[in-house]
């Protein structure tokens, strides 16, 4: 009886530790199963062949039994032609380069609009900062799709901009901005702007204003103080914001599909078409793996920055 009690007591005292284990294990296992394993499967299927079957790809591993000889062997077939196809076809290479270009332009536009905004908010009266930031974040809460949709009505021929230009007498006849790279830039900048302003604001807000006062006392002009003090100090925010915009922008699908023209090639669109239109799952997987390879370095920098910020916040 006594042993039972002592086992119970020691068991109970271990619940603390055990509970801790559960708290880590549940999200850990979830992410392993639904985030890590799927990548391994995508990697595997990128080496298989497209066949007409359900599911439409060949199995990599096969267990062959030879009845007569009484032997069996494991056969692993790796088909690397999907990757050769990516490297050999201009379509894919162009799509990759174009995606990087569009993401880079979007990032720069977000920075150009977002930096002054973040700076102005960080300099505003402390009581006003909260509501001003709230106004930046609010559009992010409304549907992404709806915000892209809003721009269709603005950019199309006979749309708001076109009518305004015509009314002002600048143009005669409808102006079509929709279905071009510029429409994609505008739409993506619009959607990703809050992601740029947020990290910029949080680094600028933490900056010590006495540094700028000291520089001014020593005779530095405001512009020079900005270049030599504010800009370098806000670099972590610039990096975090740029990555937060750039990485998802490279793989963007919805915006180029709705606002871009048929020649606005982006890798997310190529992947989508391989999967849904051509039903070629192995090539779609190879495109995904190649996209990940392009993004692996930016993602690692992002995680490094993110980790540093979490450390600093503690």
């Amino acid at each position, binding site marked *: 009886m006594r042993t039972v009690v002592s086992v119970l007591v020691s068991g109970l005292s271990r619940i603390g530790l055990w509970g801790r284990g559960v708290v880590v294990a549940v999200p850990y296992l979830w992410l392993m199963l639904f985030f890590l394993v799927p990548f391994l499967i*995508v990697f595997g299927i990128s080496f298989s062949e497209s066949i007409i079957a359900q599911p439409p790809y060949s199995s990599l591993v096969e267990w062959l039994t030879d009845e007569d000889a009484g032997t069996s062997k494991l056969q692993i077939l790796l088909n690397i032609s999907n990757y050769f196809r990516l490297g050999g076809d201009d379509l894919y290479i162009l799509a990759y380069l174009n995606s990087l270009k569009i993401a880079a332009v979007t990032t720069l536009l977000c920075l150009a*609009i977002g930096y002054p*905004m973040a700076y102005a908010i960080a300099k505003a009266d402390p009581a006003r900062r909260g509501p001003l930031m709230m106004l930046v974040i609010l*559009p992010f809460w409304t549907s992404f799709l*709806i915000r892209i949709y809003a721009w269709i*009505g*603005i950019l*199309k021929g006979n749309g708001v901009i076109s009518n305004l230009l015509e009314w002002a007498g600048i143009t005669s006849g409808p102006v079509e901005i929709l279905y071009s790279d510029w429409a994609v830039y505008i739409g993506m900048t619009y959607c990703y702007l809050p992601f740029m302003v947020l990290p910029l604001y949080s680094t600028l807000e933490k900056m010590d204003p006495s540094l700028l006062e000291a520089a001014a006392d020593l005779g530095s002009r405001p512009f020079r103080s900005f270049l030599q003090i504010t800009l370098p100090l806000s670099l972590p925010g610039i990096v975090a914001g740029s990555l937060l915009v750039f990485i998802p922008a490279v793989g963007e699908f*919805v915006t180029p*599909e709705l606002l871009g023209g048929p020649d606005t090639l982006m890798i997310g669109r190529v992947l989508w078409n391989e999967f849904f239109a051509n039903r070629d799952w192995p090539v779609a997987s190879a495109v995904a793996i190649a996209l990940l390879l392009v993004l692996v370095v930016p993602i690692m920098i992002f995680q490094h920055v993110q980790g540093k910020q979490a450390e600093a916040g503690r």
Partner: protein
Amino acid sequence: MKRFGFLSWALLFGYAFLYVPIALLIVFSFNESRLVTVWSGFSTKWYGELIHNDTLLDAALLSFQVAAVSATLAVLLGTCAGLALTRFGRFRGRTLFGGMITAPLVMPEVITGLSLLLLFVAMEQWVGWPDGRGVTTITIAHTTFTMSYVAVVIQSRLAGMDGSLEEAAMDLGARPAKVFFVITLPLIAPALVAGWLLAFTLSLDDVVVASFVSGPGSTTLPMVIFSSVKFGISPQINALATLMVLVVATGIFVASIVMARQERQRKRDEQMAIQNG
């Protein structure tokens, strides 16, 4: 500082850029003409048509179900993850864990969608579950990518919070579970609400991942909107968008008022405690 210098103009431009498109969207939802961008008179007929659009209503209902369930799951998982990352110090596999939590924040949606679909197909072959794709698979997919956002929100709240309250409770002999439920949970409650709302909105917003992992008969609202927008703009979508913006704005407004009130209450309590102590 100058009253209306470059910075003020930049701020004004930024807000105009953010809000004018939404404002126009709302204005044209009351337009009588089928040509969305040509004003011909005030009308609410598109809202009337919306109510009778069964495809849209069914999809909206499904989306709300998926969003509610996945946001709840995401808050449970994300809170555990945020707690583990801020309060448990170093543990085996922490780096991998941290990486898996932050990566979905920036992962392109097409990759998340494709990889989850291939997982579901492979699982169906190996273990026979999930049987086909539909609401369950969409919910799992949404939980997976929204829990990262929740974890980040919880993490930043926990990191900015004073740990001494928890330590004091521990010193007074409270077990870790009790400390969590009595001290930590009430303190991070605003972050839980914010995380849930964020996960809910993200789920309600997703078209790419859902397109990959949905099956026949499980079409979500964004999927319906996406396919109709591809065929061009229609005043009905404007009306729907206006309603969605209205719901979101009301939700945020109410949530921020409630949270501000709680924060004031907490400050007052602290003040009282200091005065009495």
